């Protein structure tokens, strides 16, 4: 009788769903994926939202494959939240005692990872790229490996949050406030400007995923804002300065 051999698989909790990541072989890539994503691994479950195949056949080197894997898993996370969650291109950290969460929305390449990495030394790390919020204000974790650009390297290095000393997020996290980050090296200090709702929606909408699939998506964001505080534009040049200001705002952790 022929024995069926199932593909090597990791089950990851992304947001509030489980996805299966399927590999072609138990090779170095598979081992590295365990090192990078092991903190999000859960026991195999029948209720997988999706199976994400990683058994692509290419000549990519290991670093490129790991980077691509992060993108694929993030896309799966977005698909898992599509039509039911507010999905923002953002970093987020939470007060480890209260779960109060600060969401920092920003365009790509404008400092989300750097800021999240700094704040994550003291506050619970939720994500450096994709933040999902339920319509009642719960912030769902997606503590992916951080993609860090190193001098002289084209491909960002994927790094598990534990290796960077990031604090795990508490079980329940809830939205305290949303910031829209604008980093400008000419800016002096840190400036906050409260945005009226429509102006805020204008800037935030550009940094959402699948908002058009969420029933009454604008209303969903408006309700979150109404329940917390106005979205603020945060202009800064140095993430170290901003880290201290935001740490004071989140409070608690030292």
């Amino acid at each position: 009788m022929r024995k069926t051999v199932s593909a090597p698989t990791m089950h990851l909790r992304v947001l509030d769903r489980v996805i299966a990541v399927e590999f072609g072989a138990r090779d170095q890539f598979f081992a590295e994926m365990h090192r990078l994503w092991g903190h999000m691994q859960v026991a195999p479950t029948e209720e997988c939202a999706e199976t994400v195949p990683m058994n692509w056949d290419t000549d990519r080197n290991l670093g490129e494959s790991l980077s691509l894997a992060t993108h694929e898993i993030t896309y799966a996370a977005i698909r898992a939240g599509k039509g039911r969650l507010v999905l923002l291109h953002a970093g987020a950290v939470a007060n480890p005692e209260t779960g109060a969460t600060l969401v920092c929305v920003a365009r790509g390449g404008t400092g989300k990872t750097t800021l999240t990495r700094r704040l994550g030394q003291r506050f619970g790390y939720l994500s450096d790229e994709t933040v999902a919020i339920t319509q009642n204000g719960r912030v769902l974790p997606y503590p992916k490996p951080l993609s860090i650009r190193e001098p002289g390297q084209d491909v960002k290095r994927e790094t598990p949050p534990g290796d960077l000393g990031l604090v795990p997020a508490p079980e329940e996290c809830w939205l305290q406030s949303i910031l829209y980050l604008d980093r400008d090296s000419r800016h002096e200090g840190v400036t906050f400007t409260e945005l009226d709702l429509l102006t805020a929606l204008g800037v935030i909408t550009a940094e959402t995923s699948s908002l058009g699939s969420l029933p009454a998506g604008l209303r969903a964001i408006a309700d979150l804002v109404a329940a917390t505080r106005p979205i603020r534009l945060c202009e800064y040049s140095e993430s170290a300065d901003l880290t201290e200001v935001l740490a004071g705002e989140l409070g608690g952790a030292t």
Partner: protein
Amino acid sequence: MIVTRARFSDFLVVGDESGVLLNSRFIHLGQIATAVVQAAEVPVSITHLADVLEQRFGRPASLDLDAAVLGVVKELVAEGVLTEVVDGE
């Protein structure tokens, strides 16, 4: 010209202004455009829209109201917020 709202994902009115979500594109509408979109929930003519705007904001002293409304409507059609209703639709 008869127009009505396009199929947008969401329309949120805040005070006299509003925002429209077209797939993932956000368009911020001022008070005149908001009033037009509110009135165009069902197919409406330019003349009807001009009446609605005159009732709400008064008649502008030195402006051809119908021409001004037509200009706003054409802009909203170009942005994909309104759509022209052709015969048989």
